[in-house]
């Protein structure tokens, strides 16, 4: 399977609407920029890897164009089917992840794809203490999600599947705006 087979879509570029104004000194030309029109949704994202892992391939565009307030009703069942199909950690009645959530409850949370963010302090996907209070650049979100999918009640189940053993980015982040590292 070729993972990196990416199609580039050529996109037409909108032209600027130039409007000259009646300046006597004709040194100044005012530009009016066109921001008009209706913009139609193509993609959306809240939490990392949710659409990727839990939405079946033929439903990905549909998930991307369902508003969050309707996602739970439309997709929770699909999420649960895919979660239990993917992970043996939910094989038995009563099985939960380390947050104490069974398959139905966990997928009910995930199917509404919004990122919860605290305005009162630490913002992290999971840091050992705080859970789902934001998402910081350095958060190892994939390992957190693998643990919640495969790790069982105490993170001990399926150890070979619950950590990808890539724990940090390939470049240092900055403490200051814009925080992300310069491009390669």
């Amino acid at each position: 399977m070729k993972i990196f087979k990416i199609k580039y879509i050529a996109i037409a570029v909108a032209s600027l609407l130039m409007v000259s104004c009646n300046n006597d000194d004709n040194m100044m030309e005012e530009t009016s920029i066109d921001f008009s029109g209706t913009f139609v949704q193509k993609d959306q994202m809240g939490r990392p890897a949710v659409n990727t892992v839990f939405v079946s391939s033929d439903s990905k565009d549909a998930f991307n164009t369902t508003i969050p307030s309707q996602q739970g009703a439309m997709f929770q069942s699909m999420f649960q089917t895919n979660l239990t199909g993917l992970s043996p950690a939910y094989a038995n009645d009563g099985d939960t992840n380390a947050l104490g959530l069974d398959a139905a409850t966990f997928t009910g949370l995930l199917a509404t794809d919004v990122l919860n963010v605290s305005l009162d302090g630490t913002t992290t996907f999971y840091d050992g203490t705080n859970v789902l209070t934001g998402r910081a650049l350095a958060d190892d979100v994939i390992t957190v999600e693998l643990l919640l999918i495969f790790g069982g009640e105490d993170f001990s189940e399926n150890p070979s599947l619950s950590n990808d053993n890539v724990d940090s980015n390939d470049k240092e982040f900055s403490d200051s705006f814009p925080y992300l590292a310069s491009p390669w």
Partner: protein
Amino acid sequence: MKKTKILVVTVFAAIIGLITIAADHIDAPAVSGSSADITDFYAFEGEDSNNLVFVANVQGLLSPSATTAASFSENVMVEFNIDTNDDKVEDLVIQAIPRDGKMYFFGPYSPTTTGLNSTINEMATKSEVAISSSSAIVANQNGMKFFAGPRDDPFFMDFAQYGEIIGGNATGFNSPGSDTFAGTNVMSIVVEVPKSEIGGSGTINTWVEAKSKQ
């Protein structure tokens, strides 16, 4: 895990088509590879703890040479959505749209309509920043900070090995793993906004959308 279980999982995964790219990288078939294709979304407290930072990344897996030619489409608006009363409907938006080498920002403001179709209220707070190339150009306007341009993809994962597991060719991850996203760039939009303008305190729900001009 028993080997038989792995086989069952693998077959099941193959049937339902769990072929994936991590985070949100390239999981929007309709807009794959374009600047409407969101790769990642972050929201975290700023260096100034009175502020919150939003990051939207699009158009992932750019090689250094592809990055030079990459741009934000003027037909694509990136919209940060903020729900302050936990009904999963946006109460505030911050909209980003490029024009002629600059990224323009509107908001935060309360949109007249919510959901899949958006318009830009040009009367809302308006800010702009020149789109960066390699070094970061930062604008400070209206009490906020703005950036738009290429950055190293902050996402990290052994996606290749995950694919091997899902494909039934491996039973687990390697130690150490290999970062599939090392050495690749994304097109990034970063906004730092006072918490007082997006709810003040408590917990908000946030998500990012890419919207294409009709």
